[in-house]
């Protein structure tokens, strides 16, 4: 019997990999093993529209395609370890699966606050559907909500909680929300707009402990001040899910290092012929920018990397793999849309519109555009996308 393609991780990347393998003509067996009990679903609405409305699997589930009807989905099952020399993975139920090809799509999990009094209930992260279901119940009008972290997820959740009538305080170590990658000028404006909606910011501050006996009742800041709250949302970044790969010849410094074909790389620089990594967990160089391998946590990356793997696997890959990063964010009536890697910029400037209304910023490294980001003005932002195509 042919050994299957085993995809570890049943989120968007795992689903897209299975679909792309079929689309590019692979008709053999595929097994997808995923820790969550839910079939693949779309995560971004979990901090935005869906969190503001009713959270359910139905509201976010990806449609199942006929082409993947014969895929073997093993859900609610983590993978404990892998043996790449012998081509096996062992799941959390103790079962060992042999693969012909392995696709690593285990993504990220949220970092959690590590303080002494961390055993309290009422602490939330926003990554999974179950996280969002749990959080939604607590976001009642008048509830005092503290959001730790002022990145995209933190700001989106703050906006959603505010929309639901909560009293919201954002606490973060940086100077302004999403300074990286948006740049100070746009970050300040973003903060102004949040404040105009009634969100309070306590910046350049970190948390040293929690207050409460069973449930969290407040946070203690490094200034000694206490902010009391009913709900604590931790949006302080993420860890890569690569522990199960330890002990193999891989570079797991920050995710799984891959070559331009998304093949996992050994210590000697050679690639594993039958081991790929995709999505948030993959660290790869993008020739659009430079030779520096990076993980890119943008929504389009799982789909783009899955397609590349399917093309490589079926012998149909052409040219270099150079996906154009794109992301968006909705906060109140602000629609933020961006292309490129904004964080690489050494210069950021307003290139269209007005800062306090709809506007577009350009991001440049040594004079060359590496990113574009707009609040509104989508057609203008989209017009710059071609700047990032491989010449």
């Amino acid at each position, binding site marked *: 019997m042919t050994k299957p393609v085993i995809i570890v991780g049943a989120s968007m990347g795992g689903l897209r990999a299975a*679909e792309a393998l079929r689309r590019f003509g692979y008709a053999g067996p595929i097994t997808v093993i995923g820790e969550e009990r839910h079939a693949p679903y779309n995560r*971004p609405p979990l901090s935005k529209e869906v969190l503001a409305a009713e959270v359910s699997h139905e509201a976010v589930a990806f449609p199942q395609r006929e082409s993947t009807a014969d895929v073997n989905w093993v859900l609610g099952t983590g993978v404990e370890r892998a043996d790449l020399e012998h081509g096996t993975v062992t799941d959390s139920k103790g079962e060992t699966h042999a693969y012909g090809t392995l696709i690593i799509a285990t993504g990220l999990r949220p970092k959690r606050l590590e303080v002494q009094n961390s055993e309290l209930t009422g602490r939330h992260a926003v990554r999974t559907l179950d996280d969002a279901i749990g959080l939604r119940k607590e976001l009642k009008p008048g509830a005092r909500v503290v959001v730790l972290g002022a990145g995209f997820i933190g700001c989106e959740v703050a906006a959603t909680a505010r929309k639901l009538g909560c009293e919201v305080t954002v606490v973060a170590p940086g100077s302004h929300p999403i300074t990286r990658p948006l740049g100070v000028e746009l970050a300040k404006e973003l903060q102004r707009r949040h404040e105009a909606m009634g969100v309070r910011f306590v910046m350049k501050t970190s948390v040293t402990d929690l207050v409460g006996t069973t449930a969290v009742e407040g946070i203690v800041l490094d200034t000694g001040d206490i902010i009391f709250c009913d709900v604590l949302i931790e949006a302080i970044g993420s860890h890569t899910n690569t522990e199960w790969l330890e002990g193999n010849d891989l570079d797991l410094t920050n995710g799984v290092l891959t070559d331009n074909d998304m093949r996992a790389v050994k210590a000697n620089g050679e690639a594993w012929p039958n081991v790929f990594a995709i999505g948030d967990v993959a660290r790869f160089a993008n020739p659009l920018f430079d030779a520096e391998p990076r993980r890119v946590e943008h929504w389009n990356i799982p789909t783009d990397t899955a397609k590349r793997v399917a093309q490589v696997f079926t012998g149909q890959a052409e040219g270099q793999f150079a996906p154009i990063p794109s992301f968006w964010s909705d906060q109140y009536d602000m629609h933020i849309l961006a292309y490129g890697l904004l964080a690489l910029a050494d210069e950021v400037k307003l290139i269209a519109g007005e800062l306090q209304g709809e506007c577009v910023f350009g991001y440049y490294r040594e004079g060359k555009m590496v990113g574009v980001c707009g609040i509104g003005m*989508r057609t203008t932002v989209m017009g710059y996308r071609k700047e990032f195509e491989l010449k």
Partner: protein
Amino acid sequence: MTIKIDVDMTKCQHYGQCVFEAPDVFRLNADDKLEYTAEADDSELANIEAAIDVCPMQAIFIVK
């Protein structure tokens, strides 16, 4: 044969990602709002499926 396309306009946030994948079917108008052709030729299937994949709101459907 033709493909019938439906976009759930209550979900659509006009991000325009579909425009890059299937420019003959989807476009943004002068007000940055999505417009689309509800029927497309079968030859557009791969592009439309790509547009479905890249829609951040997962608002595009093929009507069977």
